[in-house]
């Protein structure tokens, strides 16, 4: 948490002092020419699995690839867009069998520890791929480390924020978005009674439960002491806030199937005033009925705080290189190019995705997109997730518990006890 704040603060400070950045690179230029002399001799084929949205985001990355090919004509890049939902399993199957795996993968931050623990990823220390690591924001960069080695470098970072419909909030008599969970409930109830819309749409998904758990000072796990804390008093208090939002009617009765899409649709149609979502939904939201012609109506705020703090999970994507790649050198160069501050700034400018490099925030390319500045504040409350190989298995039990709470089948306490029990089955040797 503290690291997240300091990283974002550093990013903000750097944004103010662009000119000062020039001097920072003094040690690297001496190394860079030598590297690029080698680099121009590297040839080969690099297959990249991109998991970004194929229609909105893919073309921007393909433009970057064109620039890469212009710089390294001897390296051929095969761009493959793999749907995000399938990519994890597809990569694991291919990586393990040793055939059909890509050389470079865009991996979600939560996948890296698992892939690295299974031996699928190449360590990046001492390769061009790990370029200026001190420039990375601390929290996203930590997702690429496993057992003291770096297996991936962050491409974009994100977190959840509170997105709101300014007009609806104003109708309900609120000029500012809610800052605490109590205010969230009050504003939501006011919208319901005065603005003729629902106050808040919840997405019944484990990831979207985290701001409430963090807000009350809880977490899923305490990695340092190997403790399962999902059913701790703090975590329970957080989930109880969600239960109260549902039972009090402040949140609309949440859909359980297609929960994300239903919440998004309701928000875009103006049927609900507030939702929790991340920067990846910018383009989607701005295309909605109530924001299309009035982009100023679209508000972004940090997640409300609980009794302990305001906290939302760190998300994003990393570049990782497959250990079994036949073209490691070319792959490292590809990652270096795609993950440079310039490339990140270009992506940020065109898509509003948040760069994982501090210096990229200061670049004009990135500053051209006002979404980047708007997400800076929510990003300050990003909390590091447990980067452990079992990380990917933690969501399903919590999702089932959340679904039971949302459907009124089980109370928070009982549901979280079940989740903790399921975690004990996944994490051998951890205590409750």
């Amino acid at each position, binding site marked *: 948490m503290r690291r997240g704040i300091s990283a974002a603060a550093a990013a903000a400070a750097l944004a103010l002092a662009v000119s000062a950045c020039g001097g920072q690179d003094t040690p690297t230029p001496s190394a860079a020419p030598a590297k690029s002399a080698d680099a121009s001799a590297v040839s080969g084929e690099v297959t990249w699995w991109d998991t970004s949205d194929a229609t909105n985001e893919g073309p921007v990355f393909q433009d970057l690839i064109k620039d890469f090919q212009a710089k390294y004509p001897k390296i051929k890049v095969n761009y493959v867009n793999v749907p995000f939902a399938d990519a994890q399993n597809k990569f694991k199957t291919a990586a393990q069998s040793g055939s059909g795996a890509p050389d470079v993968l865009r991996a979600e931050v939560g996948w890296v520890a698992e892939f690295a623990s299974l031996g*699928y990823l190449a360590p990046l220390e001492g390769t061009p791929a790990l370029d200026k690591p001190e420039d990375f924001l601390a929290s996203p960069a930590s997702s690429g480390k496993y057992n003291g080695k770096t297996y991936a470098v962050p491409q974009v970072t994100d977190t959840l924020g509170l997105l709101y419909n300014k007009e609806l909030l104003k109708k309900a008599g609120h000029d500012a978005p809610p800052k605490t969970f109590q205010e969230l409930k009050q504003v939501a109830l006011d919208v319901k009674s005065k603005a003729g819309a629902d106050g808040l749409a919840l997405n019944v998904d484990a990831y979207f439960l985290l701001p409430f758990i963090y807000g009350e000072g809880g977490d899923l796990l305490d990695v340092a002491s190997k403790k399962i804390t999902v059913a701790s008093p703090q975590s329970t208090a957080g989930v109880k806030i969600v239960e109260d939002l549902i039972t009090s009617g402040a949140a609309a009765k949440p859909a*359980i*199937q297609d929960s994300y899409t239903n919440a998004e649709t309701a928000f875009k149609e103006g049927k609900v005033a507030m939702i929790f979502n991340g920067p990846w939904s910018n383009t989607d939201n701005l295309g909605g009925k109530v924001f299309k012609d009035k982009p100023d109506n679209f508000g972004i705020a940090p997640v409300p705080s609980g009794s302990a703090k305001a906290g939302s999970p760190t998300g994003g994507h990393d570049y990782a290189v497959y250990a079994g790649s036949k073209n490691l050198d070319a792959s490292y160069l590809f990652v270096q190019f795609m993950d440079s501050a310039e490339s990140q700034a270009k992506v940020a400018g065109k898509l509003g995705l948040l760069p994982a490099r501090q210096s990229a925030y200061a670049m004009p390319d990135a500053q051209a997109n006002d979404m980047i500045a708007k997400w800076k504040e929510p990003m300050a409350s990003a909390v590091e997730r447990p980067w452990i190989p*079992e990380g990917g298995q933690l969501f399903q039990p919590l999702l089932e518990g959340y*679904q039971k709470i949302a459907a009124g089948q089980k109370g928070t306490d009982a549901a979280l006890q079940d989740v903790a029990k399921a975690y004990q089955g996944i994490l051998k040797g951890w205590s409750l």
Partner: protein
Amino acid sequence: MTTQVVDGTAAGAPSRGRARRPRREGGAGRFLARHWYAWAMCAPVVIVTLVLIGYPLVRGLYLSLTDATEANMGRTIGMNVIPSTYEFVGLSNYADIVTSSEFLSRLGWTVTWTVVCVALHYGIGLGLALLLNRPMRLRSLYRMLLVLPWAVPAFVSAFIWRYLLNGEFGVVNAMLRAAGLAGVDWLDDPLWAKASVIAVNVWLGVPFMMLALLGGLQAIPRELYEAAEVDGATPWQRFRHITLPGLRPVSSTVVLLGTIWTFNQFPVIFLVTRGGPGGSSEILVTYAYRQAFEGIRNYSGSAAWGVLILVLLIVLAVVYRRALRRQGEAW
């Protein structure tokens, strides 16, 4: 060409003669010698079956007796070498599954799901088959329309149903609301979710039953009905004593097939409710799938689930066959 043939018989004759003289080579040798041609013709099928079914089955059985996961199976990927550290653990995977609280509740729902689905498949399929077996106008058009659900790939239908049944924006609830009724939580309430997946599976499975039973109905000689009518049998008596017994050869097969398919009906559950809400509509196969493909893959655990499902179905098939044989069925 001709010399080759001569060579062949010349070489074959003495060996056959030798086999005949001392009876040392026994039955197996003679059997092979006599049927080698048949064996040679079967070989491709036998080999393909062994490779595609036999090997994975044996491998699965073996893995289910170990503690193998994605993390402890040896492999070398580029610079990373991971040693094999999995061990033989006997039946402990099976013991874990059978003693888990999850197993009995999953099995209970899987059996309910199978029985209800197959009963509805058969009942509705038979009803439609009877309707369509009598002469009427546009009969072939009706038949074609009723077969349609079967012609659409199951996953496509499953997705369409998922959208139709969406609580907030689905067509079904929109129609209910237009009629002045309250919408129903088709997929969000545990009980309704179960009813919904059964409805979707019935919609998918009826055409097959209808077609199979229609074929069976057409094979029943018309004279039997005529004779019964002359004897003054009521329609119910004709149905009970001619149609049902006449359909039995077809019914027994399709019911067994339907049971096995429904028991393992993965796409409907996985795509319509994803096992939710809160795991309430999860059947054994979808649960086993999650074991295998979620997080670090648990090869041994999921293999044990697979073997257990296989055993359950084998037991069912054997009991069913016995029951049929007792009733005088030939197969």
